[in-house]
């Protein structure tokens, strides 16, 4: 017994205040307690305030008739008799629409400008530099205002609208484009398109497998391009071209028919795309520069052609650097689309956190839904990024 007590001395006596475990526990209880107290205080005050102002709580208001009009609703038919919940859906789709258009064009602008920035041509790279530095250092809201008030609202009225070849009309009410019109029999063409896409997926798999087994390459890209163009046209020709264009026409004081794109959407998408495009250009430039020149030289030394070197050596490595910050730029663009509220494009912030909040006064629920939507989007994007990083991370032996 005596030997045991010598070999295993009792743990040193530490005062409770110096014990790391006890300290950690104490701090966490303190943090949690103060948050709960503060939260309880706020909830209590809010309840009191809402009760004294006679504002209802809960999400029942979503079922109530909205009673206001929404200026632009391209996907769903909306009228004043619809509910607040439906108005939320419409405005949410509007946000996603402008974010989608913005992402598409920002990516195109960003890649062009990023490559132009690295051009050997001094004029081109300087122009790209000027573009990037100008766009990045001017607030987005100012750019949106410029496009909206300075350009689109300053255009002539419908009667003097700018006429592009008699098909596209631009005036201060927006952009008017012809819209495709599908007659019966177009379903066959759609089916052919879907079948072609499925076929191309199988073709790409087969080509990859053969490449891995025999080393024989197969021109998948050109074959699929030819297929996707030729087959639907053939199908349409067989069915007697069952489609036409619905042209916009000037009747009275405004245009009817075709697709109308309001100036708010045009200026918002334009400003978002050019602004975010400048940031994407810097990301693309950094990504391309991050691939060391040795990679290219090694590929050339192995006798790989320049085009294939670019496609199979440089771009995959550059994309690994480009994609993570690129997705966060997409997220920024989606969040920035909320500036729509400043030029009255009916997005979720204007319609929901603006009009609906004004009408119902249910600030807590409405702000929670609005923020929840953006949080959901950023959650989805960060989940994608984690998945991408995992699938792209270097597999080390």
């Amino acid at each position, binding site marked *: 017994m005596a030997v045991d007590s010598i070999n295993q001395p009792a743990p040193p006596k530490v005062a409770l205040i110096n014990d790391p475990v006890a300290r950690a526990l104490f701090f966490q209880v303190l943090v949690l307690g103060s948050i709960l107290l503060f939260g309880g205080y706020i909830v209590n005050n*809010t309840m009191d305030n809402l009760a004294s102002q006679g504002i209802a709580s809960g999400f029942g208001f979503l079922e109530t008739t909205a009673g206001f009009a929404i200026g632009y609703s391209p996907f769903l038919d909306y009228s004043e008799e619809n509910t607040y919940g439906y108005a939320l859906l419409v405005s949410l789709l509007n946000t996603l629409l402008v974010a989608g258009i913005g992402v598409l064009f920002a990516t195109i602008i960003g890649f062009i400008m990023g490559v132009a920035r690295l051009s050997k041509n001094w004029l081109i790279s300087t122009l790209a530099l000027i573009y990037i530095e100008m766009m*990045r250092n001017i*607030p987005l809201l100012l750019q949106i205002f*410029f496009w909206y008030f300075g350009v689109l609202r300053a255009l002539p009225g419908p009667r003097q609208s700018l006429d592009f070849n008699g098909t596209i009309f631009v005036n201060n009410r927006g952009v008017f484009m012809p819209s495709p019109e599908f007659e019966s029999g177009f379903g066959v063409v759609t089916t052919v398109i879907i079948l072609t896409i499925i076929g191309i997926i199988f073709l790409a798999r087969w080509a990859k497998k053969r490449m891995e087994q025999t080393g024989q390459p197969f021109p998948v890209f050109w074959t699929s391009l030819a297929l996707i163009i030729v087959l639907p046209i053939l199908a349409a020709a067989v069915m007697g071209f069952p489609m036409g264009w619905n042209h916009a026409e000037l009747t009275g004081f405004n245009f009817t028919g075709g697709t109308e794109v309001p100036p708010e959407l045009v200026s918002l998408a334009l400003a978002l795309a050019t602004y975010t495009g400048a940031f994407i250009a810097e990301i693309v430039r950094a990504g391309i520069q991050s691939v060391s020149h040795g990679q290219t030289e090694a590929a050339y030394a192995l006798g790989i052609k320049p085009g294939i070197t670019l496609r199979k050596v440089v771009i995959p490595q550059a994309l690994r650097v480009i994609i993570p910050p690129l997705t966060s730029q997409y997220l920024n663009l989606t969040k920035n689309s909320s*500036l729509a509220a400043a030029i009255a494009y009916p997005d979720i912030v204007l319609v929901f956190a603006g009009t609906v909040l004004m009408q119902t006064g249910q600030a807590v629920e409405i702000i929670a839904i609005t923020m929840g939507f953006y949080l959901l989007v*950023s959650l989805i994007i960060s989940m994608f990024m984690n998945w991408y990083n995992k699938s792209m991370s270097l597999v080390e032996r």
Partner: protein
Amino acid sequence: MAEQRQYEVGMHPDLPPPASLVGVVGWMRANLVSSPANTFFTLLAIYLIYLLIPPMLDWLIFSAAWVGDDNTVCKNETGGPIAAACWPFIKAWMTPFMFGRYPESELWRIKITYVMFGVALLALVIPQVPFKKWFALFLLIPFPVICFYLYVGGSFGLMYVETNLWGGLFLTLVIAITGIVASLPIGILLALGRRSNMPVVKAVCVAFIELWRGVPLISVLFMSSVMFPLFMPEGVNFDKLLRALVGVTLFSSAYMAEVVRGGLQAIPKGQYEGAQALGLNFVKMMYFIVMPQALKMVIPGIVNTFIGLFKDTTLVGVIGLLDFLAMIQAGSSNPDWLGYLTTGFAFAALVYWCFCFGMSQYSQHLERKLHTGH
């Protein structure tokens, strides 16, 4: 005919490079017309410049109205606004653009703080000036207090100035600088919390940071303007500007936390272990060892956050504060000056651009200076 001298092999004096490879011609050959594609791009760029620059210069300078004290010089024959910039508009509205509706007799209060801020900032930025620590301390602690008493007034015999009279570039600067200064300590705490081993503290900090980073600033501003009054006990009503400031601070502290976290992660583990081996407790370790290194490393990140915040302050116009951009819109909706909004925007763009570009150049300069590694 010149006499041809014979040289031993290797004894010929160096000749200058061919004229086509040096000077302007050589530079142009290498950078503009080195290949057919390159020549094509050069022509394309020249065409683009031709399309953009002359009309822009014409609008901004040559056709623009420059001198005059009222709107008569900015009218065309029919009495409408001219199709070019109208700089007298900016001149006439300069004071509101800079200071909002702050009483003109009290403007010296703002100007004094500008001078103090400028001197202290210059002292910080110029490497040769000594006593940097004291200038920084002055900017962080006494200066905001002085500013608060000078701007608001109501004590020391100064006239009380309501915050709804504040506006213009002054308000923009107040919001941006308060936002960044107030968010620094909160951001440091959040960053430490996020790296803590205590699960509750860590979860709270992560949730807080990700919540604010996931939502747009405009929804935070809407929240602060409609929800904060509900949070307060009945009867307590606080200022619209203060509400916006709290919203902006919460928002930017989340971004600041991520910047600081980057600095903390870059400190090698040996620094922590060395400090602990010396018997320093957590606060001393952070204050003496970790933070001085981490914060120095993230100065460029802080400047970049500040640039972002400076641009984002334009959003406070949406909740009804008259910041620089909102003031310009207000100015050009004045019946005397209708139709010169674009001139106002050009001026605003120039001012914002100078601020942001200057700061980004400074931050890049710092990055190069601090990059003392390999």
